[in-house]
């Protein structure tokens, strides 16, 4: 009897496996994450241009675990009735949900700074986009190396 060759040989399977590893390790994934972040930004601020600057983020350079990472966002603004920061959005390119939090300020805030503790699922560059009362958008970012990601340990 003629023996038909198996549809998927061991070699085929192996190459598929290797290919899968290469795809999952390639920057394609981070492109997808960047697309999520861009979508979140569009939902929040539309297509308005964002200028880099005026927003300073402070994060530890290395976080031992992503469960609770201290974040500080400081936005340059006189915080007067004529010129103040309306809101700031904290965005992550790698968390399951790109939007971490949004904070609203008023001229009564006196200073446009907020500190919070965030979750980070892995090494990434956290981004903050601030909206001024004149509608202009400003951004800043900071990279943190996370040795133990929040979604793994939790």
């Amino acid at each position: 009897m003629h023996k038909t060759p198996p549809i998927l040989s061991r070699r085929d399977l192996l190459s598929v496996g290797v290919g899968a590893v290469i795809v999952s390790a390639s920057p394609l994934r981070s492109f997808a994450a960047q697309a999520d972040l861009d979508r979140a930004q569009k939902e929040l601020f539309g297509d308005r241009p964002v200028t880099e600057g005026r927003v300073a983020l402070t994060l530890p350079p290395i976080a031992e675990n992503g469960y609770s990472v201290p974040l500080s966002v400081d936005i340059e603004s006189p915080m007067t009735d004529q010129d103040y920061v309306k809101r700031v959005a904290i965005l992550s390119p790698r968390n399951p949900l790109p939007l971490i939090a949004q904070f609203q300020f008023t001229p009564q805030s006196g200073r446009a700074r907020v500190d919070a503790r965030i979750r980070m699922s892995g090494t990434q560059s956290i981004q903050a986009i601030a909206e001024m009362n004149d509608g202009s958008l400003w951004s800043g970012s900071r990279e943190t190396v996370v040795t133990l990601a929040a979604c793994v340990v939790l």
Partner: protein
Amino acid sequence: MASIRLAVPETARVDEIVEVKALIRHPMESGHRRGSRGEVIPRDIITRFECRYAGALVFAGDFHPGIAANPLITFHVRATRSGDLEFTWTDQHGESWSESATLTVT
């Protein structure tokens, strides 16, 4: 549940910008975790934080699962007159908790 800790100075000079800290005990369950039997632990988070100074909203936050458990928020308030600072947290089910502190402006 919900034990709240506030750090608000008792007194401030007019136009002084004071630092305010507000903490609430809450698991901020993200909805991404699984239990020991592989079941998804449902999301349970605080979604809104507000601070009112003498009745007017001065600072607010919209929280998502990326905010860590027991959220501690530090922000600033410009002291203009004596009054209460009222802090309110509301969870995704609509339940809310409040606490206030008095700021005396001299």
